[in-house]
């Protein structure tokens, strides 16, 4: 085994360890959310989905930002590792936006009375999901590694630039989505027990995100070391 492949193995192992920690923490979140967090007065039990939905949205956005920043750095430094990193973040982001888009309707059915509504924030997160998909599809359709890296970096950067417009339009379009309750100009209006559960869940999800990205990055490096990289 070459030193390069050995290093990749270490990265994969670290990634898997992080994923294991993240999954354990996620288990703890379920226990804390269901057992030790008060039930919301108006929404009842369905409100618990909040603790898995919001962190997924946070991770999807975070992954998106990482793709954008790694893409900028790639175009600047032209280091193939940055391209692989952006690809790993995009794949993890796709997973988290899928979680966000499945937990959302599960909550919407009992609370809004419908699985899906063309609410602005819902629509835009759906389009972020499509943007991730487009990014992945583009990578699959290009063969030359250099070309693939440059082109997908450009798409990654444009995607990141689109995100603020997403947020801008959210506040202007008529919406039924709950308004921000934690990250808003005045102080968070969430009881401490609920905020604590949310923060725990945010941590668990973020660890999972880092774990996924690290594992995938390590696998990509390993494939590269074996000279068989055709990461789609």
């Amino acid at each position, binding site marked *: 085994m070459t030193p390069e492949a050995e290093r990749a193995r270490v990265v994969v192992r670290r990634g898997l360890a992080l994923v294991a920690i993240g999954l354990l923490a996620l288990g703890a979140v379920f226990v804390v959310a269901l057992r030790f967090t008060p039930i919301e007065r108006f929404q009842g039990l369905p409100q618990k989905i909040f603790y898995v939905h919001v962190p997924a949205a946070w991770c999807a956005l975070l992954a998106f930002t990482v793709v954008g920043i790694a893409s900028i750095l790639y175009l600047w430094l032209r280091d193939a590792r940055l391209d692989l990193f952006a690809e790993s973040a995009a794949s993890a982001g796709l997973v988290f936006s899928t979680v966000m888009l499945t937990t959302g309707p599960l909550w919407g059915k009992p609370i809004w009375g419908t699985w899906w509504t063309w609410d602005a924030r819902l629509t835009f997160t759906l389009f972020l999901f499509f943007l991730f998909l487009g990014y992945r599809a*583009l990578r699959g359709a290009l063969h030359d590694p250099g070309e693939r890296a440059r082109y997908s970096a450009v798409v990654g950067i444009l995607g990141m630039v689109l995100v603020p417009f997403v947020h801008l339009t959210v506040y202007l*379009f008529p919406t039924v989505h709950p308004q921000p309750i934690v990250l808003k100009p005045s102080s968070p209006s969430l009881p401490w027990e609920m905020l604590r559960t949310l923060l725990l869940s945010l941590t668990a999800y973020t660890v999972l995100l880092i774990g996924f990205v690290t594992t995938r990055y390590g696998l990509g490096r390993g494939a590269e070391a074996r000279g068989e990289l055709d990461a789609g």
Partner: protein
Amino acid sequence: MGDLVRAVFAIAGKDLRVEVRSRTALVSALAFAALVLVIFNFARDAGSVSREALAPSVLWITFTFSGMIALNRSFALERENAALDGLLLAPVSRSALFLGKYLANLAFVFTVEAVTLPLFVLFFGADLSGVVSGIVLTAVLATAGFVAVGTLFSAIAVRTRFAELMLPLLVLPFLIPPVIGAVQVTARLLAGRPMSEILGWLKILALYDLVFVTVCLLLFPALMDE
């Protein structure tokens, strides 16, 4: 600066000349736009949805979809006979190449829109008296941004195996802010709402144009270095 402007107009002029002489793409895009309008009329339940209620959406779907046809052709044109290599060898900057392509695409899409608008009035009975200038301004603001993104993506998509499919997949998410803004403005204009309700959306459209034209201009050279 003078050189840049000259190069930009030379490239845009070349594209438009090709277009004027062959006319295939323009005629197809116009026929496509007319067909979309016709299909939309039959794709609604005439008893429950009035033409007027659907009008703003129809207008913008038609504009953006026919715009996409135009964009597909932009770099496909350069693909044949390796014309792009010739362009890249020419002593013009990559920015001039992008701006020239962008201007030609804008001219193409504006032409399609200018022909579609009267057809839209005819088919959908929209009363544009007094709001024509507002609609034109909205069209200009909404189109300028997405054509910039589309021009850039056209250069990317043409290198992939299924360019016709890849371009819409990449561009459509970027169409959402301009389409939402344009539909909101158009609906309010047609309903005779005051200017104050429209101004905010127009500002967003203008900001979108400014940001994306700048970013695309900065990113385009990265696509072209071989």
